[in-house]
Each structure stands twice: as C-alpha cells, then as structure tokens.
C-alpha cells in the first residue's frame, strides 16, 4: 500500500530487549529470588504444609465472620472440600498462594492510585491511559520479556497478574470518589478537615460501594490470569487446565477450571463480606 510510509520498529525493539536482558537480566533474576524466598515460598509452604482440615476450618470461619450467614459459609466450605476430593488440593493451595499475593499487591497499589487519580486532574490524565495500556496490551507481549528478565516461574506471573488486575480497582476508586456528594464534602470542609480526614472520614466511606465493586473485579481478573500464569511455569490449578486442554481432556480442564471459579467465589465473598457496611443504606419501603 503506497498510502502508508513503511515503518518498522521490530528490530530496534528486539535489540533493546536483548541488551536489557544482557545488562540487567542477572540482577533481576536475583530480585526474583528474593521475592520468592522472602514472600511467596513461605506462604505457599505454610498453606501446603497445613492439614487440609485446618484450612477448611479457616475458610469456614472467615466466610462466617465476613457474611454472618451460614447459607454462604457452609456451601463455600463444602465446595473447597470437593476440590480436595477431585485430587486438586495441592494445586489449589499453590494457586491460592499466588492469587493472594497478587490480589493483596493489586489492592495495596490500586487504591492509592485511584485516590490520586480522583484528586488531581493532571495525574488522572497520566494514570488512565497507562491503565488502558496495561489492560489491553496482550499479556504475552510483556510476559515473554518478563520471563527473559526475571526467569520462569511465579514472580513474573505475579507481576503480570498485578499489572492486569489493578486496572478496574483504580478506575472504580476514581469513579466512586468523584461521585461523592459535594454538599457533604463542603460541610466536612467547613469544620477544617485535613485532606486525610476528608479522605478517610468522608470520601472513602461514601465511595465504598464503588471501591468494593473494583475489588471484586480485581479478584475476578487475578483469577482469570491463573492459566496465563501457568503458561510461564507457575504451578497449580492453571497447569491442570493447560494440561487438560493440551490433551483435549475437556473433563480435566473443566474440573480444574471449576476449582478456579470456586476459589474466585470464595475470595470474592469473603472480601466483599468484610468490606460491606452492615447497615442498610436506605429504608427499602420508600421505593414503592
């Protein structure tokens, strides 16, 4: 096509990646080691080492504390037990460790980012396009360079998961904060609140439903990355799915896939339960 002046960035990019690998690869591999030994492996060891009934008990207690409804807590616990019956307990624990770390990191980083975006128009103009890139640049495109830089395994998997899963939380925190009633904020201002008091005492509580929706999406996305993570060598349920697919054993894939879904539901219900404010926001009757 004559209309387009031909351009090609492939070679420069490849050379840049190569030289990055040669120059920083070793150091980043060491970093990988540190994160692994310091954070992920101990957690994983604890989860895999504990007797299953202890874990099941913890799940039941957490679910009950979070929701106060045994109609939620009981099925969740039974479902986890069933995963064990499918012979996937060990894989479940590995995936749990990975997803927990990734979700915690995503929330810890995403909430402040969302707050920053809501408070400064200029920063929002920077943050939102970066999120666009993070969410739509195909995971593989940065996963492969990540593998070259960090080595195979869990650490690049976690990084990729965080990059992908953080986006909805940032966006929904931003949205929620910007929808807080300005009259209420004005009243709080009139008492001389610091930014901090305003944020913690007024804005975050009122934006809470949106933020919780963001956390829900983050959990969902972190779990939807489990299979991708196992494509670069993270073990666990994702590997089972992959193996099932590679051999066209739909049953094996689906069984492991359902376990992932269950894990997602469990994490989601528990986080949402802890996040939810108990009081009904408004008397329902009025809305006849």
């Amino acid at each position: 096509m004559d209309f387009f002046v031909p351009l090609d960035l492939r070679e420069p990019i490849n050379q840049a990646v190569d030289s990055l690998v040669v120059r920083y690869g070793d150091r980043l591999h060491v970093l990988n080691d540190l994160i692994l030994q310091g954070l992920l492996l101990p957690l994983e060891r604890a989860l895999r080492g504990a007797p299953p009934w202890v874990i099941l008990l913890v799940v039941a207690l957490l679910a009950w504390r979070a929701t106060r409804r045994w109609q939620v807590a009981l099925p969740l616990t039974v479902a986890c037990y069933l995963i064990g019956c499918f012979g996937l307990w060990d894989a479940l624990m590995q995936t749990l460790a990975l997803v927990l770390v990734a979700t915690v990191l995503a929330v810890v980083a995403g909430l402040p980012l969302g707050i920053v975006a809501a408070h400064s128009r200029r920063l929002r103009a920077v943050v939102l396009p970066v999120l666009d890139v993070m969410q739509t640049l195909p995971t593989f495109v940065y996963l492969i360079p990540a593998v070259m830089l960090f080595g195979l395994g869990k650490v690049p998997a976690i990084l990729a998961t965080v990059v992908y899963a953080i986006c909805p939380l940032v966006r929904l925190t931003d949205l929620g904060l910007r929808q807080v009633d300005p009259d209420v904020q004005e009243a709080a201002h009139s008492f001389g609140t610091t930014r901090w008091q305003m944020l913690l005492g007024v804005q975050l509580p009122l934006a809470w439903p949106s933020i919780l929706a963001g956390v829900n999406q983050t959990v969902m996305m972190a779990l939807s990355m489990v299979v991708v993570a196992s494509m670069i060598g993270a073990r666990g349920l994702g590997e089972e799915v992959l193996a099932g697919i590679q051999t066209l054993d739909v049953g094996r894939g689906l069984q492991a896939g359902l376990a992932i879904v269950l894990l997602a539901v469990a994490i989601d219900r528990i986080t949402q339960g802890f996040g939810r404010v108990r009081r009904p926001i408004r008397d329902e009757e009025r809305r006849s």
Partner: protein
Amino acid sequence: MSARIELRHVSKVYGDDPHRALTLLAQGADKHQVLADTGSHVGLYDVSLSIPAGGIYAIMGLSGSGKSTLVRHINRLIDPSAGQVLVDGEDVLGFSAARLRDLRRRRISMVFQHFGLLPHRTVLENVAFGRRVRGESRRNAQAAAQGWLARVGLSGHERDYPDHLSGGMRQRVGLARALASDTDILLMDEPFSALDPLLRDDLQSQLLTLQAELGKTIVFITHDVEEAFRLGQRIALLRDGRLVQEGEPAAVRAAPVDDYVARFVARVSGADVPRSTGSAPG
C-alpha cells in the same frame, strides 16, 4: 466596637468567565441581564459590610438574593471573584491551607441550609464531627455532642442515621453539630426554617442566652422577619446580590431606604419583639 468580620467590595459570579460578567455589572447591568447575556449567575456584587464582634447579625433578602453565597465567603468555602474578606482584621484569602483549617476548626462553624449531614455516620457521630476533626478524643467529643443533642430535643436518636429522620430532625442535627464545635463565630443559614413554632421559640431563646453569656458572633440568615428583629442586633438586606440596607433594626424600621425594604419590615408588628440588647465584649 471593632469589626470581627469584614467584607470589602466582594463580588461572586458563578460561571466560566466571571470577568466579562463583572464588566457588565460595572456598566450597570443587573443579574437577570447578566444571566441572559453570559449564562453566568451573579451571586454577589460589590458587597461591603462589617459585622461587629459579639452580637447576632441577621441577613435577609429575597430568595436567590445571595445570602448563602455571602456567608460561605466568611469561612472561605467560596473564593470571591473580586474583593476581600477579613476575619479579625486578617485577609482570609491570603491564608495558607493550614491557617484556613485552623480558622474553620476553632473559630468558625456553620449550619447549612441543606444540612450537609454525613449519611454514613450516626446522629451522635455527626454532631461530634467538628470536635473529632480537631483532634479531641471520641469520649469527650461524644459527651459534648450528647449535651447538644439534648438541647435540640433529639435525645434517644443518637444511634439513628440521618436518612431515618424527619426534615426538622435533620436540621436540628446540623444545628447541634455547629453548636457542639463551640467556636466564637457561628454562621447559620436558615437554621430554624424546618422547625415547628414551639421548638423554634425555645431555640431562639437558647441562642440569645448563648450569645449573651459567651459573647459569640453569630451571622444569622432568616426569612422570618420577626425572627430577624427578635434576634438581630443589626440587620442587612440583600437584593439581587447587592446590599440594599444595613443597620440596627430600629433604624431600618424607622427609615427604610426604599419600597423593597419598607415592604419587608412592614411585616413586623412594632412592640411585641422582645430584645436582649447589650453587646458583649468585642
């Protein structure tokens, strides 16, 4: 008596291009013309007034004449488009964020026309809010709040949430919240408008006592002319964003500057307004 609060040539235009509106106004246009020409709302135009220390200063005027806009300038919830605002002789527009915060925490509190309650906090927490913000312990703040709730007749509703209250009850929560802050200056934007006459009588008396005992400076917006004459040691009348007349109630009644003011004050039946005069130390 020294001026506690002073507005100097304050104008406020809501809109994208205040300067164009101000130019039009300077050429004699009124707010309706400005709205039609530029789409901007004139809140205030060239208002200068000084509010003496210790005393109740009543502000009246037609709906939409700029009363709420005016009081918001005093604690700088609104920055003026032009002019200066002085509190205790200092220009609040020049305040740093920290000083402004201090002003709002310790020296000025406000009752909002639309209440501005925090929907996610109980009535008690709402009332304690001002004290909590300036760092008092929960215990102290809630004890003080409890006392004020009783004085506005809301004991027993401490643990309700605002959306379970009636309109008048919400207004009283906003009132108690401002009073509980215990600041020298009180800005009150139609604080009794949703209250029944018995309660209103009671609260008016309490306010007079409070002012007399503690020498607070109170800026009081009301539509009720009798209330203004009963409470106000001075009265200001606004119209379409401009200050029309200002002075002691007796003086305003005796010599209204125009027909508009005359029609306003005509509604007060001469003698039956009890007054507790005697201005407190400035």
